[in-house]
């Protein structure tokens, strides 16, 4: 026996593809949409379409943009000699919020993770190597997540960039603000010790 009409069932199925949405939540959302004003629902559908039609990846750095080249890459005031490499557009946003970085970015759109079928060719490493090869880059900062997949990604990139005369750096790993030294694990502590910095440095 069929519980719902075809179109309603289809909506539930589509919604349940979203991350974190199980069948029950999908059902609740579908009912909500059903009860919405027609204009509201159409505006939601339109927003989804617009995002898919207008937003694409920046040709230079793979950031999300509505033009060919993103705001950051086309900004004359940003230092194009320093590239900060991140995994996802969200990471770029996090770093931009600090307002402390004035270089440009390169977004990998993923990380190396063999268990998930993601190898070096499945993320944007080649284009990064291409940029460095062309010259004019002084420093590449690897701002990749400090987990095993991130380490593999960083080490692989470093290996590819080694033949070129470019400075390769990575973010210091350390204790998060508010952390308790006593409860920090061995890896975090070791890294924090390695990445210690001088106080009152001149």
């Amino acid at each position, binding site marked *: 026996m069929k519980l719902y009409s075809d179109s309603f069932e289809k909506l539930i199925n589509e919604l349940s593809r979203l991350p974190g949405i199980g069948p029950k939540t999908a059902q609740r959302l579908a009912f909500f949409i059903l009860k919405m004003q027609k204009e509201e629902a159409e505006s939601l559908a339109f927003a989804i379409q617009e995002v898919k039609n207008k937003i694409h990846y920046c040709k230079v750095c793979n950031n999300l943009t509505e033009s060919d080249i993103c705001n950051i890459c086309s900004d004359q005031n940003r230092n194009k000699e320093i590239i900060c490499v991140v995994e996802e557009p969200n990471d770029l946003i996090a770093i931009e919020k600090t307002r402390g970085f004035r270089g440009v970015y390169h977004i990998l759109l993923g990380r190396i993770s063999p268990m998930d079928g993601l190898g070096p060719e499945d993320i944007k490493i080649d284009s990064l190597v291409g940029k460095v090869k062309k010259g004019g880059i002084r420093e590449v900062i690897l701002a990749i997540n400090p987990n095993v997949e991130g380490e593999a990604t960083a080490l692989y990139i470093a290996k590819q960039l080694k033949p070129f005369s470019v400075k390769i750096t990575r973010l210091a790993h350390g204790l998060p603000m508010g952390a308790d030294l006593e*409860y920090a694990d*061995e890896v975090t502590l070791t890294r924090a010790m390695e990445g210690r910095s001088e106080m009152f440095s001149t």
Partner: protein
Amino acid sequence: MYLRTDAIVISKRNFRENDRIITFYTRTYGKLDVLVKGIRKIENRFGSSLELFTYNEILLWEKRKGDLLILTQCQTKESFFKIRSDLKKIASAFYITDLARELTKDKDKNIDIFNLLFTFLYLLEKANKPEIIISSFQLRLLFILGFGPELDKCVNCKIVISKNIKYFSLQFGGIICNNCARSSSSNISLDHNTVMIMNKLIYAPLNSIENVIVSFVALKKIEHLFSLYIFYHMDKKMKSKKIIEKLIK
């Protein structure tokens, strides 16, 4: 009910907004999927103790029999963090943990697999030739799983072949004499020297595996045989293999 055991992280995947499902290979219960709540928040109390390859003592909560297990406590005993500073070693560790994940069944207790995994992560941390370590791991794993190939005498007629080895029969699961080879449908060529190396990789004492002399060509041959073998007998294909080869290169 609470379960306490030692466990190695062999795989992880994100789940819902802030959670993750970790696959452990445990000492007491075999391979287990465990839900870890809140792990993706930066202030989570598990820190990096649940990274891939880490060896932990864990406490799990099982509400009712068959429910998804929930992690309640975790104490890292060994993080194998020297593996993480070397691309070849990370790739090798990816491979052996993936083998342990792919070739074993859920909740199928096998302490030998646990020990093998632990020992080989330990060896990898100190290894100079990770490629030999993983080759040895995969052969030893086959024997523990009860799929070990016959490498001493003809798998069919049990005659001792000694130096005249020419073929390995996938169908029968071992080396095969020229006579029997005619009635076996799936032979691949394998020479005496490679079989000797395989035996050494299987039986060498743990602290001298890296002393086994293996040429690059022989390693490739063993790799190839292994892939065909697990596909034929266990219906398994290591999808991560190609990627791992790229990282090791």
